[in-house]
């Protein structure tokens, strides 16, 4: 057995040593196939809630027209109502959007994403972006060679 662990570069934890969380994360990402060249992964379930900080920092605005409604409850806003505004500028009743962001991190109208407190999901997003960048770089290289 020892031979197998050595071969894999693994060893038992020493007294008082904590497991390496980054290592666990890396293995989790590998299991998802994220380090393959053709990475095209989709997050396999509902993305996690928005981070507490992002939610706290959503600006509060005062509605100045009578023509809009809150996309969550569909009730019309009245001039002078308080609303929370997402970075994509979509506006909602504070309780409506806060309830939604406790469930998942994106704008219910246009899916603009807020950061989350979920390490795995954040790592997933980074890797996805990197994969897109890699593809773009390859395309540029390819175009420069064959045009």
């Amino acid at each position, binding site marked *: 057995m020892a031979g197998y662990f050595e071969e894999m570069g693994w060893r038992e934890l020493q007294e008082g040593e904590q497991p390496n969380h980054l290592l666990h994360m890396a293995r989790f990402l590998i299991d998802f196939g994220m380090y393959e060249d053709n990475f095209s992964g989709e997050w396999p*379930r*509902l993305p996690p809630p928005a981070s507490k900080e992002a939610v706290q920092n959503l600006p509060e605005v005062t509605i100045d027209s009578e023509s809009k409604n809150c*996309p*969550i*409850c*569909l*009730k019309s806003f009245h001039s002078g109502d308080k609303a929370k505004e997402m970075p994509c500028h979509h506006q909602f009743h504070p309780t*409506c959007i806060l*309830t*939604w962001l406790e*469930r998942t991190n*994106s*704008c*219910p*109208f246009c*899916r603009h994403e807020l950061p989350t407190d979920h390490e795995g999901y954040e790592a997933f997003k980074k890797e996805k972006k990197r994969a897109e960048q890699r593809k773009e770089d390859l395309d540029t290289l390819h175009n420069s060679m064959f045009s």
Partner: protein
Amino acid sequence: MANIAAKRIKREFKEVMKSEEVAGGAIKLELLDNSWTELQGEIAGPPDTPYEGGTFLLEIKVPETYPFNPPKIRFMTKIWHPNVSSVTGAICLDILKDQWAAALTLRTVLLSIQALLSAAEPNDPQDAVVAKQYKENPTLFALTARHWTHAYAGGPAAIRDFDAKVQRLLDMGVDEHQARVALSTYDWELERATEQLFNREE
């Protein structure tokens, strides 16, 4: 039912009733009870598809947590489609699951289901048998879907040969729907369908 869900359904109901899709006969929405939790949807089969001419009924159940969670929707009308179970009517559509967003409405959901009838996603199937036929024998798939549209959704009369095969099994005492499922599953080969139907009963 939670107040916000009922209130929102009431607002949506008005929106749907005013919409041009209702005016044009593409979708319909009806209340089944007064608590606003159960509705019946109706979509017209899209033109230039095997579903054209058919009318498909949908069961809509609104959870107490709506619109923070999606409505539960299934086909009541039997349909032959890769993303709908031919047995239960369950629908495989991302916006009814992980891709649900609170700003979607019953109107947009019904329109999405209608769009699914025009553009199936065979790589994310709900019904593996139908999806296999869709990929391997698209012509036969389209004929089968049209036959089902005629049989269950009031679509135009379709394929005489299929009707005749169903009738042959009826004459043997097989239930009509079971006959249609067996024939559809075995690419309308009467012998294989018969074999499967009678072996199962032993």
